[in-house]
């Protein structure tokens, strides 16, 4: 197990390094000088040279990459060339908004999706099961930004139940809750369907196992059999699925943050790309990649801990 953990962690680090290198190479390969594009057509050669050196673009590519990683170990992600604030400060200022949003969305999806899947499995092939099945597929296929647009249209513009823009006043908890409802719904909706299907499938599998039959044979009440013995096991796959689904969650968060003009790492990436602020692009993409790699690594480790067969495959 220790060998597996080491290997898996090393793989994670290698992937992050490769990803950053790819980004650097891409910036380098693009026709046109980023500094020139940032400053616009009226910039003088001197201004461009100053901007290039401020962005570190005047050095050879390998040096740039090495420097970036050197600074990274000291927690320094570079400097935002426009506002002259440290990138790390900007990124970590926005990160909590995204994490809260994702967390709320997943909790909301789990609270509805898991009971729904459980109910479907226990009442297999009834009308409600069929309807849940079709609704789940409909939920899964609805793109997050379409759900976001519709919830904005219906609940914020027409009914005016919830605010449309921003993340709420700082320190005002009620206001922040009101602002997170619609974005979390937009991200969570597809996960309701996804979790319902997953839990239904694994619940059906668990209910057929020997220990459930034994529990029933002991004369335990159905409630105890379902909740204490079956559901506990059937919920396990969802943990790993959420870990692997972090990429989808981050992508969905990006769209909803833009639709609801909500601060967060997705909106930060989008805004910095629009303004061609490369240091901020690098920093925010790096942080979200690390977040993604970390969550897939953790879910792989949990999987390997549960199922020894996986350990042999790496």
């Amino acid at each position, binding site marked *: 197990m220790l060998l597996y953990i080491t290997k898996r962690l090393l*793989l994670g680090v*290698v*992937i*992050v390094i*490769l*990803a950053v290198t*790819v*980004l650097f190479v*891409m*910036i380098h*390969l*693009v026709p046109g000088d980023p500094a020139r594009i940032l400053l616009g057509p009226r910039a003088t050669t001197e201004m461009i040279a100053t901007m290039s050196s401020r962005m570190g673009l005047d050095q050879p590519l390998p040096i740039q990459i090495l420097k970036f990683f050197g600074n990274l170990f000291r927690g320094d992600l570079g400097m935002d060339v426009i506002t002259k604030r440290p990138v790390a400060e900007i990124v970590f200022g926005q990160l909590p908004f995204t994490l809260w949003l994702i967390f709320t969305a997943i909790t909301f999806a789990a609270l509805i999706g898991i009971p729904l899947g459980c109910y479907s499995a226990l009442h297999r092939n009834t009308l409600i099961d069929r309807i849940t099945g*079709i609704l789940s*597929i*409909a939920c*899964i*296929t*609805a*793109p997050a*930004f*379409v759900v976001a*647009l*519709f919830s*904005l*249209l219906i609940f914020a*513009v027409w009914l005016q139940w919830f605010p449309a823009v921003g993340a709420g006043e700082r320190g005002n908890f009620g206001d922040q809750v009101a602002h997170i409802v619609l974005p979390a719904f937009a991200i969570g909706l597809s996960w309701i369907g996804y979790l319902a299907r997953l839990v239904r*499938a694994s619940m059906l599998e668990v209910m057929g196992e020997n220990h459930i039959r034994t529990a029933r044979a002991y004369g335990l009440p159905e409630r105890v059999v379902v909740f204490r013995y079956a559901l506990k096991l059937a919920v396990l796959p969802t943990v790993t699925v959420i870990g692997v689904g*972090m*990429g*989808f969650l*981050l*992508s969905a968060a*990006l*769209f909803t943050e*833009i*639709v609801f003009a909500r601060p967060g790492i*997705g909106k930060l*990436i*989008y805004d910095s*790309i*629009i303004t*061609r602020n490369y240091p901020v*692009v690098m920093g925010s*993409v790096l942080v*979200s*990649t690390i977040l*993604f*790699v970390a969550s*897939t690594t953790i879910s792989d480790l949990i999987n390997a801990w549960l199922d020894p067969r996986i350990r042999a495959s790496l």
Partner: protein
Amino acid sequence: MILLLKRICREPMGLLGLVLVVLISLSALLASVIAPHDPIALNIVDRLQGPSANYILGTDQLGRDLFSRVLYGGQVALKVALISIALALSIGVLLGMLAGFGPSWLDNLIMLFFDTIRSFPTVMFALATVALVGPSLSTVIVVIVITSIPNYGRVIRTQTLTIKNNEFIQAERVMGASLGRILWVHVLPNVMGPLMILASMDIPTVVALEAGLSFLGMGVKPPTPSWGSILNDGYTLIRNTPWPIIAGSLPLVLITLGFTFLGESLRDLIDPKLRKSL
């Protein structure tokens, strides 16, 4: 093939999926015949109208007919989906078979490449690329191809690994068949079934991604109609009219539902074993 179609039609979900897919594909293909108006012709007098006999889905802020734009937008969506999935499939198959059959260092290298690609959240990778190269339809296609290669490659690799040790492959080797012949004649047909199902279930994802990027202004350039750019118009006009949002999302939701229903019933018919692994 006809037998398969008959069996799909017997299931209500499969039939619904098939009907939706055929309907939307036909409406996109025949856009120039069906569309009542020019999708990019401006008509400021009739701007921001609701649905009427003349404009079935209303008009946008420049007075363009939304129904015609939706029909032509379907062409963009299907073009992107078909081209990028075909390309990703071919490259993925090639790399996957190489990884499965080649020496272990090559296998590790290819798998590392796959893992690296998958470590970027797709949309962020797409945004970063578009920021560097500039928005265009071909950029969108390239991004989708690169990010979908690992999905197919991994499936092919696993399938190849299981087939590799079968006796008939060893027999071929003993008879002196070349690697290319083994892969092309013996491995490929065996892995094609699950792959086609995977591809058909990927179409909704790709269509949604194209729409999403166009929504962010990173896909097709205006005035070319795309479902995503119609939705973007709708977003800026959200306090004036709901019709662009409805017009843009309707085909998007219908086609994703259609392909998903179709893919699911295809999977249940062809390869029920996949049900658990997908």
